[in-house]
């Protein structure tokens, strides 16, 4: 299997099929990131598409000494945050005061067995809690926990000091603990 670097070089040389290979390699990860940062699956899909088009446009200027994945995640994160801000403006404009507006991605009311239903409820609760985190905290947490990036990589991706990333992840977990774990409200995490 060709490395990212080889595919990027070939894509920079105008080989569209090589870019197709890169998209195929990263589409699940980029979509997964978008799905955890945005409100709906439709937004996540649109964002993922926008990410890969932006990356393609910017590819000629990509420095091969940098890590492609980190650069890709940086663009993906920015696209998602831009989309969040756009959606927030639309929500404020369209329906001030509605309950969340963010939890559409969680609305899956298909019936299932009882235990599956309980698991689904737990998952919805978790997703709501993650979605309710401040954007900066959620981005750091999602990149680290779900995209399996180290603190260093998250810092590179977001252009922040590692210490700031560590603080954001720590605070995100403090908030999640208060919402999700029994006795969390009183916890000292």
């Amino acid at each position: 299997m060709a490395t990212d670097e080889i595919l990027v070089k070939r894509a920079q040389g105008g080989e569209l099929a090589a870019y197709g290979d890169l998209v195929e390699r990263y589409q699940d990860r980029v979509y997964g990131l978008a799905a955890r940062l945005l409100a709906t699956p439709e937004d996540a899909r649109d964002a993922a598409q926008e990410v890969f088009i932006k990356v393609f446009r910017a590819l000629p200027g990509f420095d091969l000494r940098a890590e492609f994945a980190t650069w890709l995640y940086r663009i993906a994160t920015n696209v998602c945050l831009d989309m969040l801000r756009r959606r927030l403006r639309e929500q404020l404009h369209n329906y001030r005061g509605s309950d969340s507006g963010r939890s559409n991605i969680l609305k899956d009311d298909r019936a299932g067995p009882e235990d599956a239903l309980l698991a689904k409820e737990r998952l919805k609760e978790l997703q709501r809690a993650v979605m309710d985190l401040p954007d900066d905290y959620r981005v750091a947490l999602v990149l680290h926990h779900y995209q399996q990036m180290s603190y260093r990589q998250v810092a590179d991706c977001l252009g922040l000091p590692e210490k700031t990333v560590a603080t954001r992840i720590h605070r995100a977990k403090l908030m999640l603990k208060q919402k999700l774990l029994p006795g969390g409200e009183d916890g000292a995490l």
Partner: protein
Amino acid sequence: MRCSRVQEMLSRYLAGEYNSFERAALAKHLSSCDTCSDIMADLRRLNEMLDLWRSEPAPDDLLDAVMIEVSKLSPGVSVQHCLQPVPTSPAQTPGLLRHLAVAAALALALSWGIGSWLVAPQALAATGADRLVHSYATASDSVMQDTANVIESLTGKLNFEELMNR
């Protein structure tokens, strides 16, 4: 090490990012501090909860949609070329090799025949015609046999006789 400092470090500690000295310092604190140990247990549970949110694969049409869009940014490149790669099924490869083998055999046979005509008159002047033709034919047969063996190993079908017939 103070508890507030330890608690800030616990997420990263669980992620396995600290070096051995930092880990040893944290482990020492945790072994003697119930509060911090409880918080670490909570963090472990929280990580397990977070893992419940599994990733969905990208929609099936995402790749095609992206490639159609980027092909518009690359004039002269057909997206069909990217979306439908040239098939290279195993069934087609032996056929191609077989055609190549036949072409190679014909080229060898022709060069053998022409070679006999070109070389023989000059050689006749220096040596006996029978000896030269015999040695030339033996050498050529040997080359043909080696070629046929290679071709046979590639195609699994051709043999020397078939090659000679062709």
